[in-house]
């Protein structure tokens, strides 16, 4: 126990406290800007079982803030690369890497295996998924989120306290908030905010201090100001989640990266040459397109049909009305396929535009 000597000699922790840490099981969702400092301090503190779930791989642009990774990790899965680094930091604990995406299908079974869930994800969809799964499995959620120079920290669902939905009931309107990891961020900010999350985890396990439950702490790195806001529990919001829990595993994550989704209007399409038109409607949907050469890939099959995408040509993705095509472009962008545009209008307008263009050429 020499490793933990500086903990044990604190009267607030002692041998008993350190044993509590060693018996604790903490799951960290996302090994990114926030996840890295959280994991680093929790592993060093001797949390007995640390779970890490992340489907993403380490990229050069991550190294500015994701301090568990080095250049030798580029291209590796983040959960696995983090596990490797953390095992070197502390070989006396058990670290489990889940190199996969957190989904409505795997969240409940996964959360049940841990005592505390830490949210270090980078999009609203996952944040609401994590929150709702914590309500259903009754696990405390140590939350943090960052934006440029500012961070928000709170502990939700702790000892019957409020949840994230009691603060922000619904996922923001599309386009209202940029929600992709491509946002600029001061490198040290997730370090500070993630360390606050690690601190909350330790306080919960040790039962010391005041847990940041029922409060949202806002931190601004530029003026070093903190602002604490009181949040009341909304029984209605929590009841809604519990009421829908039987359908939880049927829900699907929608990739939501609207602010980088490029849209194109039919008016801006002046040629049908050298372009790939991708129809993401389901195969049975009408009207069918016969006159124009198109590639038909229903949205549900897109992720597994990336090989049908022409990497050379400009791509215009369309559906019935321009909603699914936006999701499709997000999926393609995630798969590193460039030059994809979502058609603002829909299939009918494509057919009309093609007819007009053909007539004018004849």
């Amino acid at each position: 126990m020499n490793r933990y000597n500086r903990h044990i000699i604190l009267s607030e922790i002692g041998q008993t406290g350190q044993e509590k840490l060693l018996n604790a099981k903490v799951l960290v969702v996302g090994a990114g800007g926030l996840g890295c400092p959280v994991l680093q301090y929790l592993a060093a503190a001797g949390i007995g079982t640390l779970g890490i779930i992340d489907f993403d791989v380490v990229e050069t642009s991550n190294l500015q803030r994701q301090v568990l990774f080095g250049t030798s990790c580029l291209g590796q899965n983040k959960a696995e690369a983090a596990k490797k680094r953390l095992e070197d930091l502390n070989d006396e604990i058990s670290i489990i890497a889940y190199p996969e995406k957190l989904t409505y299908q795997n969240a409940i079974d996964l959360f049940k295996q841990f005592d505390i869930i830490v949210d270090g994800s980078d999009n609203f969809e996952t944040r609401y998924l994590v929150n709702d799964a914590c309500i259903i499995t009754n696990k405390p959620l140590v939350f943090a989120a960052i934006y440029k120079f500012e961070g928000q920290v709170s502990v939700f669902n702790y000892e019957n306290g409020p949840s994230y939905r009691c603060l922000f009931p619904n996922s923001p309107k599309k386009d209202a908030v940029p929600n992709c990891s491509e946002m600029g961020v001061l490198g040290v900010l997730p370090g500070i905010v993630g360390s606050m999350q690690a601190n909350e985890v330790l306080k919960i396990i040790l039962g010391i201090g005041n847990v940041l439950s029922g409060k949202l702490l806002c931190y601004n790195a530029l003026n070093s100001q903190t602002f604490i806001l009181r949040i009341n529990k909304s029984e209605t919001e929590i009841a809604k989640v519990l009421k829908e829990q039987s359908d939880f595993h049927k829900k699907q994550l929608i990739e939501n990266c609207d602010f980088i989704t490029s849209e194109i209007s039919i008016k801006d399409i002046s040629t049908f040459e050298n372009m790939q038109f991708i129809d993401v409607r389901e195969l049975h949907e009408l009207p069918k397109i016969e006159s124009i050469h198109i590639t038909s890939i229903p949205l549900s099959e897109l992720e597994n049909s990336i090989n049908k995408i022409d990497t050379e040509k400009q791509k215009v993705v369309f559906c019935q009305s321009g909603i699914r095509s936006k999701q499709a472009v997000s999926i393609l962008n995630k798969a590193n396929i460039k030059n994809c545009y979502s058609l603002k209008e829909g299939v009918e307008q494509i057919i009309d535009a093609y007819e007009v263009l053909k007539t004018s050429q004849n």
Partner: protein
Amino acid sequence: MKITVKYFGMIAETTQCEEEIIDFSGNFISDFLKILHSKYPELKNKGFQVAQNQELVSLETGVTGGEIALLPPFAGG
């Protein structure tokens, strides 16, 4: 009454300031937001919660004076 308004995250980018004082004579938070919406039309498209004197409030809450803060959700990690 004079209200100190605090803006966070992307809301502060819209208002181009983090804090300002606004003279207000209405009753409810919804009235107060109307003033902000006319001053900053772009706010209508932004999602945020309102806190009065560091407590989350709804549109129907009465304005009591002091400080009102506009907090947007952040997604980044």
